[in-house]
């Protein structure tokens, strides 16, 4: 602080020129500025281009070859890999599962999260503790959560034992090994894992709803439900829309949880695009890359369509403008 005063003194006395000192330096040093830009942004740019963009481009290239990853890349097969993937019932089943999880997440987790957030958005004892505990499943690694559930849901696991002790032994079953219900059990685990995040997101959105509005409506005699429906929900709509976006992208990329609990089984009941990709891709990177590209195109299409119709107003181009 003192130095600045001391130095500003002589600078002021020196005459008319010195006031815009920083600007002069900037103008005189165009080359220097580019050097600094390169120095600062360069490392991040190199890492990003090399390990994010390049692999995605490579995936597009590899996808056109029949390749085991070891021999030279020479057996060009055009779109054969794509045809093969898209005509494999197991992969199509995987796409279907991804979309089932996607829609179920939005239709089930969304209302649950909003409802709970509305209930919890008030002064109450232990609010901090409640929030922290709700968030616990989200903090756990998907692998750790998945393994815990795998143990709980195994035929001789905790869930069946509890059902039997409650006299509901008829309901006991091999939850994740029954092809008829495995996908919905998987969806249940995912809901357990991710609904806490949605609740916290909604609570954060609710913080931004001005009390004056709900108070005014209350004075006008509006019921609690009407206030939530006509005032609160529209005001947290941006939060909801962003959560839907995150949830959709997450559903389409689903991998860890499925891989550690079922590996996509039984008989493909819980297969997803990413699981299919890893199953075949490690020995056949060409074919796996085609699957990756399909996954990417589907995600991008969903994201763009959603952005076009729902997110336009909220993001102001923040996340997706670069891909338009």
């Amino acid at each position, binding site marked *: 602080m003192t130095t*600045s005063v001391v130095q500003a003194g002589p600078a002021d006395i020196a005459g008319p020129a010195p006031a815009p*000192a*920083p600007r002069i*330096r900037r103008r005189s040093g165009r080359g220097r*500025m580019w050097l*600094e830009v390169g120095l600062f*942004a360069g490392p*991040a740019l190199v*890492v*990003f281009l090399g*390990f*994010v*963009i*390049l*692999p*995605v481009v*490579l*995936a597009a290239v*590899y996808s056109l070859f029949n390749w085991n*990853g070891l021999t030279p890349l020479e057996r060009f097969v055009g779109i054969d890999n794509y045809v093969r993937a898209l005509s494999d019932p197991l992969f199509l089943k995987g796409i279907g599962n991804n979309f089932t999880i996607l829609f179920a997440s939005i239709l089930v987790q969304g209302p649950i999260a909003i409802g709970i957030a509305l*209930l919890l958005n*008030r002064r*109450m004892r232990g609010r901090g503790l*409640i929030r*922290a*505990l*709700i*968030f616990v499943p989200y*903090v*756990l*690694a*998907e692998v*750790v*959560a998945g*393994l815990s559930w*795998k143990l709980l849901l195994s035929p001789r*696991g*905790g869930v069946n*034992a*509890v059902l039997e*002790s409650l006299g509901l032994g008829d309901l006991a079953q091999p939850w994740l090994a029954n092809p008829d219900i495995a996908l919905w059990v998987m969806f249940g685990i995912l809901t357990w894992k991710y609904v806490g995040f949605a609740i916290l*997101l909604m609570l*954060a959105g*609710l913080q931004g709803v001005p*009390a004056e509005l709900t108070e005014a409506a*209350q004075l006008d005699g509006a019921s*609690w439900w009407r206030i939530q429906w006509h005032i609160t929900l529209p005001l947290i709509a*941006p*939060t909801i829309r*962003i*959560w839907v976006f995150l949830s959709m*992208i997450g559903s389409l*990329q689903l991998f860890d949880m499925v891989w550690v609990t079922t590996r996509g089984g039984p008989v493909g009941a819980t297969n997803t695009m990413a699981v299919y*990709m*890893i199953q075949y891709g*490690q020995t056949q990177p060409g074919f796996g890359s085609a699957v*990756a590209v399909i996954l*990417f195109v589907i*995600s991008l299409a969903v994201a763009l369509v959603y952005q076009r119709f729902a997110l336009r107003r909220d993001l102001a181009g923040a*996340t997706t403008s670069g891909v338009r």
Partner: protein
Amino acid sequence: MTATAAVTVPSSRRLRRHDRTAGTGVDWGQPFVYLVALMIVIVSIVPVAYVWIGGFRSTPDINADPAGWPSPWIFDNYVRVLGSSRFWGSLFSSSVVGIGTTLGVVLLGVMAAFVIARYDFRGRGVLYSLFAAGLMFPLTVAALPLTILLRDLGLQGSFLGVIIPQIAFALPTTIIILVPFLRAIPGELEEAAAIDGASRIGFFWRIILPLSMPGLVTVGVLAFVGSWNAYLLPLLVMAAGGMPQDLWTLPLGVQQFSTQYSADTGSVLAYTSLAMLPALAFFLFAEKRIVGGLTGAVKG
């Protein structure tokens, strides 16, 4: 209660905001609200508690009654896991990868964000859009070619092989969070620094970095949690890359342990619960940052 009432007058705005944001005075709701809250908490916690408590039972006990209470409490499982080199190796490995990723992404991210936020150059918008577009390129899509790339670079089966790609994939979020943060630092500070004879690089080190510390901590915590829980990349780089099992990260290690000793349920439960501990401890320590960072990042 009386104290609260007394305070309400001077700082009424604050309290009211909380009170009435959505509560709007439904008195009948209060016990009901606590009931719902209790139910959600139970649902969130019980599976975790089952694993922890199960770790205190012997495997024959668990097999006899999978949902029973420990009697007697047995510490063997935990002792055995804590005495194994693979648990500590995994912990070490996860820490190295997590810290490396965090430091790397914070450093590279804040440097790039600084340029985007405070330099006026042609192509600035393009640079920002490029990083932002990275959000649309998930690791899953790049995973297979990335593995081959890392193999060709000789990084497969090494810590750097996990750290560098994780930095790359964490950059978009980091930069998107940091740019508005750095832009909000007043321009007067920059001019003052320039008058003091500081170069822009000096300005970066002495003023930008200290002032943006809260933002850096937030992105750092997000990167660390992401790295700590990551599975796919370590699976492809470490497990498939031939790294010794003792040095696999925790998620890989847990998965491997539970496959290898699937018959010894007690040990698997103990190992799984010990694997949860670091993440939970870190969460307690950085809860505000994690929650604030995630919700803030999402709100853009």
